[in-house]
């Protein structure tokens, strides 16, 4: 599409502007405006024209939404003229040149599938995007594919995207092991958990061994404990004997002492102490009574020495009052002069205020009270005057505004006309889409059919041992699974039994050989001396002994027999040898008997093995026969399947399973076919019904018919919504307009009333009739100040009179008191006389206080004297009563009785104490029993026996402790195993680590796959940069740089990746992208973008290309001209509109052929 004119109404800062544009190929449109002159608004307006004005647009800041319009006129790809426009609103906002609603398909015919995002990224290019594209090109080292992708899509981050995938992958699971990464952390956790599981597992054999050891240790400790208890009992008995023996001796002595004191009197134990205490109490009471009498005499003498002046004390309150008034009188003397000065100044200020108000006397002004009704009324009227004026202004403005809006809304409603009912069409669309989008549904069903076809092919391909088609496969009548299972199980069982029998044979043969080897080893020990050999040796020994006995002890001559027996060895030596031989043979016989037992056992085992082997060989033969039978049955069973090749059991089972899967896939395929056919029929019926409600041409297919129906419904619904909205708006506006008119009338009435009240107010205040509210407000302030100043002056005068009166009253009161109690002070100054009176009063008050204290002490002393006398009498009575209790008499008689009673009591107490001790240490035995036990053991035997028993006890204690420690250790070990980390916990941790590893690896693989895909895709995109495209980029680049560069070419890096290089003017030197200056890189990217736009325009309808201040980075004047020329070339493929604030571009444009550049100066 190419535009011939573009108009904006009430849009942005433009109330109404119309731009004439040149649509001709080879021509460009240069729109020049200063910064802030509306270039951005214009660019936004192009976007809004094509894709709609957003609901919350910033372009209403000046004129609001009402009346916002964009219009464009132009020619389409076939050269036909069009006029489109865009209004602000909801639904379809596309309009024609007259403002009428326009079918959106008109626009689609002009711009194809291009959307807003594509426009922003490809057809609008500003200096920022130009610069970021150049930077991306630099970052990729001029990588051809990435540069083309950035220029052709507006997305400069292909490499960044790939790197982000790689980065995420490496953050999870880099190829190189890194402990901080989650995958390796999870693997480390897995390894730890495995180790923990091994450590935590308690194997049954270990547990049983430990448990057994623990039981043994417990039994041993219990046995030792019993033995130790018996030893302890014996020790306790001996210790008791040793312990009680001396106490029993003391007990007998105490019995004797008690018998000696039997005649003494029985007196209480404390009698002696009580007798001594009673005598001491009588002595102390007498001393106390004498001290109290002395204290009373002393107090009576002190009282006689203290006498105060009673007259002065009687005038005490009046003197205190004078003292309190003295400070206040001193302050009055200080305050009097400043008060008199302030009074004079206030009088002067009052006179000045009267002059300002034009009054001659204060009374004239004081007649008007500041808080009086006249002043309050005046203030109220002044405040109301401002409110009323504002109200009137607002009411007039609202009335005017609502009137204008009503007119606009009415015009819009008339334009919309009446509504259309689309209920039938909507019901049909709903029916068609009740199960989702029909196209998608059909596509899903077709995809499912294709999937089922593929699944059938795959399932059929998996059928082993089959070379015919699916139908033949279906025709096969296989044996039941039960039969196959049974036959297979039988064959399997027979094979298993055969293998087991063969294994058993092998094992038994090994056992037999092992038994033979063990027997042979036992037999290697040599022959065993039999019983006869031993008997012979013993007989030989006994014969020797008989010869010795007979020759040595019985005196027989046996030389010949001895020679025969001993030969040259001698009888003694021969006998010793015979003795040794007999013993050796006997010992050997005993050792060999054990070996013989082992040989017999091995022979028994060998025989058993032979027997087992024979039985096993019989079983093997039977197993062979059973296996042959099972194999025959299996062959008969599988013959009917007509399989290609030999059918093993697993193969047939696999064949049957695969056959079932293939037939199931075949059934699913048939079902999918039926579903597709049914859906196609349903959709055709729906299409026919829709064609009855729509133009026939709009319904070539159900999808087209549904789209057409939706468009019709959408249009009608949008129009209805818009109409309803306008009606509601209109009602609101009319209501607001009526309210505004009422408000204006009310405001005018209120203003007239106010004027009348103002005139009355001025008269009341005696102000000039024409005085303004501001002047009146000022006068009221002055009146208030006169009132305040007058009150202040009166107050000062009252205070001066009061001070003078206070000073005179004080002098009179001092003179009166002095005359009564201190005539010598009458003629002194009043303040000095008052001070002296106060001092004298204080001295007399101190004397009176001391006298009162002495009176109290005198009363206390008299009371204490009386109490001491009473206590003395009581002590004497107590002493006499105790004397009678002891038996009376003199002091010596009483002391003798007390001493004898004490001795008897001591003997009884000692005997009692000994008996208690014996009860305590005698383990509860009676004294007679203890005496009998002690008598049974001699004293000298006790210590030796005790020492022996204690040594034994120590040994047992040590062994018991050792056993307890062992038991404790084993119990702890057992408990530790029970309480330690359970294997279950370790296994859970292992499972958790496996789960984490699985998840993280899957996630890392996804990022890896994305990065790989993108990398490979970029490599393939390089093919886009074929020779023609690169040559064209080079031409445009050469044109923009004015021949400073002859073009571009493609080179390859070490990894075979192509990248762009710039060819310098000499056509030999080249530069990589990073070697180009910043501006030249911008120009290269611009060349890329222009060529990609050409490429786009060849495949789809192109939009106008908006270049917004694109050339401002081109500091070379010549290259600016060249860039304009390149843009003019682009305009053969797409209309070019250049926006710029640079007026010098106009001069640059003049360098192009006349008429190439259509210049528009934009003014808001």
């Amino acid at each position: 599409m190419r535009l011939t004119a573009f108009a904006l109404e009430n849009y942005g800062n433009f109330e109404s502007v119309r731009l004439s544009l040149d649509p001709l190929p080879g021509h460009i449109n240069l729109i020049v405006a200063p910064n802030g002159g509306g270039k951005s608004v214009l660019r936004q307006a192009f976007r809004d024209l094509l894709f709609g004005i957003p609901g919350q647009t910033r372009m209403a800041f000046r004129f609001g939404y009402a009346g916002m319009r964009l219009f464009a006129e132009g020619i389409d790809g076939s050269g036909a003229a069009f006029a489109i426009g865009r209004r602000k609103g909801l639904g379809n906002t596309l309009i024609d040149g007259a403002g009428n609603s326009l079918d959106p398909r008109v626009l689609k015919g002009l711009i194809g599938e291009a959307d807003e995002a594509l426009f922003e990224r490809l057809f609008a290019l500003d200096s920022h995007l130009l610069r970021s594209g150049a930077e991306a090109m630099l970052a990729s080292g001029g990588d051809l594919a990435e540069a083309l992708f950035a220029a052709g899509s507006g997305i400069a981050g292909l490499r960044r995207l790939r790197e982000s995938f790689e980065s995420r992958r490496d953050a999870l699971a880099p190829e190189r092991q890194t402990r901080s990464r989650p995958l390796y952390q999870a693997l480390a956790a897995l390894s730890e958990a495995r180790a923990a599981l091994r450590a935590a597992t308690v194997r049954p054999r270990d547990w049983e061994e430990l448990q057994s050891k623990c039981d043994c240790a417990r039994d041993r400790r219990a046995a030792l404990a019993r033995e130790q208890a018996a030893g302890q009992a014996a020790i306790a008995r001996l210790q008791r004997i040793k312990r009680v023996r001396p106490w029993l001796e003391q007990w007998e002595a105490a019995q004797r002492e008690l018998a000696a004191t039997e005649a003494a009197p029985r007196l209480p134990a404390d009698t002696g102490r009580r007798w001594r205490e009673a005598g001491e109490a009588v002595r102390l009471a007498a001393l106390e009574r004498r001290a109290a009498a002395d204290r009373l005499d002393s107090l009576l003498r002190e009282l006689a020495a203290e006498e105060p002046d009673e007259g002065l004390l009687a005038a005490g309150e009046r003197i205190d009052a004078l003292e309190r008034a003295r400070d206040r009188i001193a302050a009055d003397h200080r305050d009097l002069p400043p008060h008199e000065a302030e009074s004079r100044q206030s009088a002067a200020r009052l006179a000045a205020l009267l002059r300002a108000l034009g009054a001659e006397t204060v009374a004239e002004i004081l007649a008007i009270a500041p808080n009086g009704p006249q002043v309050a009324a005046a203030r109220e009227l002044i405040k109301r005057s401002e409110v009323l004026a504002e109200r009137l202004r607002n009411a007039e403005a609202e009335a005017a505004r609502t009137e204008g809006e009503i007119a606009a809304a009415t015009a819009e409603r008339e334009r919309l006309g009446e509504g259309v009912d689309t209920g039938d069409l909507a019901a049909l669309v709903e029916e068609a889409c009740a199960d989702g989008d029909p196209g998608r549904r059909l596509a899903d069903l077709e995809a499912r059919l294709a999937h089922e076809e593929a699944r059938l092919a795959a399932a059929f391909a998996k059928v082993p041992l089959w070379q015919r088609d699916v139908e033949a496969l279906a025709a096969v009548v296989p044996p039941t699974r039960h039969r196959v299972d049974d036959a297979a199980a039988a064959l399997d069982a027979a094979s298993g039994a055969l293998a087991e029998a063969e294994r058993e044979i092998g094992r038994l043969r090994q056992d037999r050989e092992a038994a033979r080897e063990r027997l042979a080893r036992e037999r290697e020990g040599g022959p065993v001396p039999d019983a006869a050999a031993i008997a012979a040796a013993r007989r030989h020994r006994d014969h020797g002994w008989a010869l010795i006995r007979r020759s040595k002890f019985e005196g027989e001559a046996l030389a010949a027999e001895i020679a025969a027996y001993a030969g040259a060895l001698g009888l003694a030596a021969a006998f010793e040898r015979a003795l040794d031989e007999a013993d050796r043979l006997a010992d050997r016989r005993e050792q060999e008997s054990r070996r013989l037992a082992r040989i017999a056992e091995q022979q028994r085992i060998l025989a058993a093995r032979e027997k087992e082997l024979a039985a096993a060989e019989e079983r093997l033969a039977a197993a062979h026969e059973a296996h042959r039978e099972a194999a025959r049955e299996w062959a008969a069973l599988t013959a009917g399947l007509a399989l290609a090749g030999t059918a093993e059991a697993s193969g047939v089972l696999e064949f049957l399973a695969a056959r079932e899967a293939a037939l199931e896939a075949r059934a699913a395929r048939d079902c999918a076919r039926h579903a597709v056919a049914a859906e196609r029929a349903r959709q055709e019926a729906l299409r026919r019904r829709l064609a009855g409600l729509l133009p026939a041409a709009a319904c070539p297919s159900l999808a087209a018919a549904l789209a057409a129906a939706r468009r019709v419904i959408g249009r009608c619904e949008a129009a209805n919504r818009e109409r309803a909205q306008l009606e509601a708006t209109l009602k609101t506006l009319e209501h607001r307009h009526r309210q505004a008119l009422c408000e204006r009338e009310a405001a005018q009435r209120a203003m007239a009333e106010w004027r009348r009240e103002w005139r009355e107010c001025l008269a009341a205040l005696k102000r000039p009739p024409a005085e303004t509210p501001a002047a009146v407000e000022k006068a009221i302030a002055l009146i208030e100040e006169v009132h305040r100043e007058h009150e202040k002056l009166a107050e000062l005068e009252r205070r001066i009179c009061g001070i003078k009166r206070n000073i005179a009253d004080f002098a009179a009161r001092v003179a009166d008191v002095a005359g009564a109690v201190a005539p010598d002070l009458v003629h002194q100054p009043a303040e000095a006389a008052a001070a002296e009176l106060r001092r004298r009063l204080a001295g007399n008050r101190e004397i009176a206080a001391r006298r009162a204290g002495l009176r109290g002490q005198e009363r206390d002393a008299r009371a204490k004297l009386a109490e001491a006398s009473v206590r003395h009498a009581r002590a004497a009575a107590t002493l006499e009563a105790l004397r009678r209790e002891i038996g009376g008499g003199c002091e010596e008689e009483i002391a003798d009785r007390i001493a004898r009673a004490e001795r008897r009591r001591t003997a009884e107490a000692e005997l009692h104490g000994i008996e208690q001790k014996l009860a305590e240490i005698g383990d509860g035995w009676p004294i007679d029993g203890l005496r009998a036990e002690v008598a049974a053991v001699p004293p000298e035997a006790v210590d030796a026996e005790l020492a022996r028993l204690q040594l034994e006890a120590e040994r047992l204690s040590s062994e018991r402790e050792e056993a307890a420690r062992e038991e404790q250790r084993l119990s702890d070990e057992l408990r530790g195993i029970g309480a330690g980390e359970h294997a279950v916990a370790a296994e859970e941790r292992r499972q958790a680590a496996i789960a984490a590893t699985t998840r993280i690896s899957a996630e890392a693989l996804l990022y890896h796959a994305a990065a790989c895909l993108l990398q490979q895709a970029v490599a393939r995109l390089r093919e886009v940069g074929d020779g023609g495209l690169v040559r064209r980029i080079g031409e445009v680049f050469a044109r923009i740089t004015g021949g400073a560069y002859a073009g571009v070419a493609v080179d390859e890096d070490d990894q075979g990746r192509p990248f762009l290089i710039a060819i310098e003017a000499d056509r030999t030197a080249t530069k990589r992208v990073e070697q180009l200056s910043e501006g030249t890189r911008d120009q290269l990217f611009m060349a890329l973008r222009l060529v990609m736009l050409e490429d786009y325009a060849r495949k789809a309808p192109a939009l106008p290309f908006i270049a917004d201040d694109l050339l401002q980075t081109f500091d070379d004047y010549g290259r600016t001209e060249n860039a304009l020329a390149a843009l003019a070339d682009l305009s053969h493929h797409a209309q070019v509109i250049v926006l710029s604030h640079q007026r010098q571009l106009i001069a640059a444009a003049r360098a192009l052929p006349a008429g190439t550049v259509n210049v528009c100066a934009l003014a808001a």
Partner: protein
Amino acid sequence: MAEFRFLHAADIHLDSPMRGLEADPDAPVRRLREASRAAFRNLITTAIEEKAAFLLIAGDLYDGDWQDYRTGLFLIEQVGRLAEAGIPLIMVAGNHDAASVITRHLRLPERVSVLPHDRCGRIELDEYGVAIHGQSFATRAVTQDLSRNYADPVPGLFNIGLLHTALNGRPGHDTYAPTTAAALIAKGYDYWALGHVHARETVCRDPWIVFPGNLQGRHIRESGPKGASLVTVRDGRVATVAHRPLDVLRWCPLSVSLAGETDFDGAMARIGQALLELRREAEDRPVAARVRLFGATPLHGELLGDGERVRQGVIAESRQCGADDAIWIEAVVVDTVAPADLATLFERPDVIGRLGAVLDELIREQGADLLGEYPERLRQRMSGIELAAEHPLREGGVALLRKARDLVLARLAGEI
């Protein structure tokens, strides 16, 4: 006795771990760790509270390769409770038990009977008029039909067959001790107490042939309520068979549609709502959820491109569903698709359209070769870990590349 009840459980797999849950510092680990123990405690408690006449376990008390003896000690402790209540426990060894070292060393208390493995054993409980027939697994892989050895029913008694079998095959289970429902029916027993298949199933009602399923789900494929069957026998016939959920942690797959959602926070709100609903359905049990997001949404690229953010977002939503341990997220699977306008990118006449076409060409032509050596290196690092079939390192890479293509285009669409 006119009426009695018994409990039928199977596949306890004591101390078998939860699989697929990542470590979560906020999760109460103890609860997770002891789930199978807690479920077993519940089984014993239920038997006692329901005054069951006896408890049947149809094999697989342990995991076969599990060696920790404390598991056995725990079993003895719990079975001791049962013995105190006077309830006999009769069981057969399953394939896992046959392979277990714990089985060989553990001395079981009185009133616990393990039926023999070299022949079909029989236990008669005169008090209830019941005969229980059963044979244990001798080895891990028993491929013979053990039920053939089972004796004929004892006339006049209520006959129960205790058998560890996969019948004629069940998905995800080895076909051990194969047999058929018809063969079992023909045996003439009143109730077949089966084990080995972890999904609850009533194979037949006349006579009753029941798989109670396992006691506690351990991974996402073992979802839904898990427990045991409480069988009531009245007048010598089965009156009712009721499932008792005894699990303490429930596995739940959760699919959340994000169709049309344009805002990430909005997506999270939808997920939060679905999680709340899930929590309500879980009968106040903690839930381990696999959250699958699907539907056409403009968020597709964002969800694909920042998996960790999505996962953390879902975990944050789960935290708001009641107590801290109400829901644990096992995994978040992004199965969303791009909205239709992503497809229109291919039709554009500029290089964006060309790029989209190139991505599809590359996937079609080169497939997993595009990925280079990185997957193999990861595989080496992760040797010894058994990966799920859908993991990119196992599925071959094509699904991964399609997902990656969507991610690239969605990210570009965000730029455009």
